[in-house]
């Protein structure tokens, strides 16, 4: 039995690349089809009816028609344009980082409804929550969890004893934490303070209402940011491009 020629789905635009004179190749994240790519014809011309509904970070109802190679977008209607994100330089940049992360970590055509909900949720939170860094950390940790890269934070990954409340060592290649005595014999690892570990565990347990009430010092926030990004970089084996931009923004703030 063949699949229908045309179909319709909710989708969030997570990447766009120029194609030819006026077209684009778009990457969408959808609730039931996972990540998909499609060609949107003529969207770079001002007369295009769809262009505004197919900008990055737009949540739309999109119709496609199957093609020989890539599908073609035939229509699009915005559900949520995340205007408050797009009107703020910092928020736009954070959101771009999130979609790049998602794009890097996911393969095409793999359905993952929880991940779709998570993406919508984090974009919502970014525009409403005050501690934006914390929202990012929460998303990063939850994303890793969802993808099966949940780091071991309860016991030492080498000797399997319960971690003691001391400065332990986080080791990306072992996917978790080494206690101080195991950490001595080799592997690249990074120190993780007692408070850092506590917050990391809270982020992992995933109760956002508890997390949002946390008061983090600047040092702690930076410690977790570095640690989680190092782990992400180790997993992806490449840099996330939008990070350079986030750094630039921080410097001029």
């Amino acid at each position, binding site marked *: 039995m063949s699949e229908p020629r045309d179909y319709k789905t909710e989708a969030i635009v997570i990447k766009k690349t120029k194609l030819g004179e006026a077209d684009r190749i778009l990457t969408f994240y959808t609730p039931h089809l996972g990540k998909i790519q499609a060609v949107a014809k003529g969207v770079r011309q001002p*007369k295009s*009816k769809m*262009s505004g509904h197919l900008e990055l970070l*737009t949540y739309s109802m999109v119709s496609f028609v199957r093609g020989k190679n890539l599908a073609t977008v035939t229509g699009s209607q915005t559900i949520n*344009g995340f*205007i408050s994100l*797009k009107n703020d330089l910092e928020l736009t940049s954070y959101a771009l*980082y999130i979609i790049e992360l998602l794009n890097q970590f996911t393969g095409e055509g793999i359905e993952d409804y929880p991940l779709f909900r998570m993406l919508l949720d984090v974009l919502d939170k970014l525009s409403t929550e005050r501690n934006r860094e914390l929202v990012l950390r929460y998303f990063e940790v939850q994303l890793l969890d969802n993808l099966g890269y949940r780091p071991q934070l309860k016991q030492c990954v080498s000797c399997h004893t319960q971690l003691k409340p001391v400065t332990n060592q986080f080791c990306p290649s072992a996917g978790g934490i080494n206690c101080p005595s195991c950490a001595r014999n080799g592997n690249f690892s990074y120190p993780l303070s007692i408070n850092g570990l506590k917050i990391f565990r809270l982020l992992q347990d995933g109760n956002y209402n508890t997390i949002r009430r946390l008061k983090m010092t600047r040092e702690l926030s930076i410690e977790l940011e570095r640690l989680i990004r190092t782990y992400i970089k180790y997993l992806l084996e490449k840099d996330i491009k939008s990070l350079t*931009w986030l750094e630039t923004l921080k410097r001029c703030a």
Partner: protein
Amino acid sequence: MHELAKLPGIGPKSAQRLTYHLLRTQKEQVISLAEAIMSLKNSTRLCSVCFNIADSEFCPICRNEKRDKGSICVVEQPQDILALEHSGIYRGLYHVLHGAISPTDGIGINDIRIDELLIRLKDEDISEVILATNPTLEGEQTAMYINKVIMPLGIKVTRLARGLPFGTELEYADDVTLTRALEGRQELK
């Protein structure tokens, strides 16, 4: 034929048609085309002030004494200048960024000519900067960033109005465009 087919928008069939057309055309015309193509690379450069395409150190717009030297219109590409000039309504100077900030493609502030713009703002007597980057996410981001770095200089910064394009229908407009069109509504005079 193969050379023509390398051009954007020209497929094998169009290349064939162009080639046969050239074969039939008079020799002088073909030579003048060839010379024009040669001079494209040999005698064009970027204007040392605004980075528009120029045939000498300064582009025709920067050389023109009649232009208003007090305002700079910031665009992404030299083609944008052509479009704006075609409308004939703007009389000031330009500044071409040659791109827009695009974090996910790894294009940051050092890949486009923002520093050069800031130097101009310090050296020249500018009263207004018009941000005419594209109304895409990248263009908006670039505009917001430039606004942020110009703000301390105390120069007036404006952004091209974003709203409904001429000749389209309201029912197809997206939320972002409609919001901005409403925000920027004007009293009829």
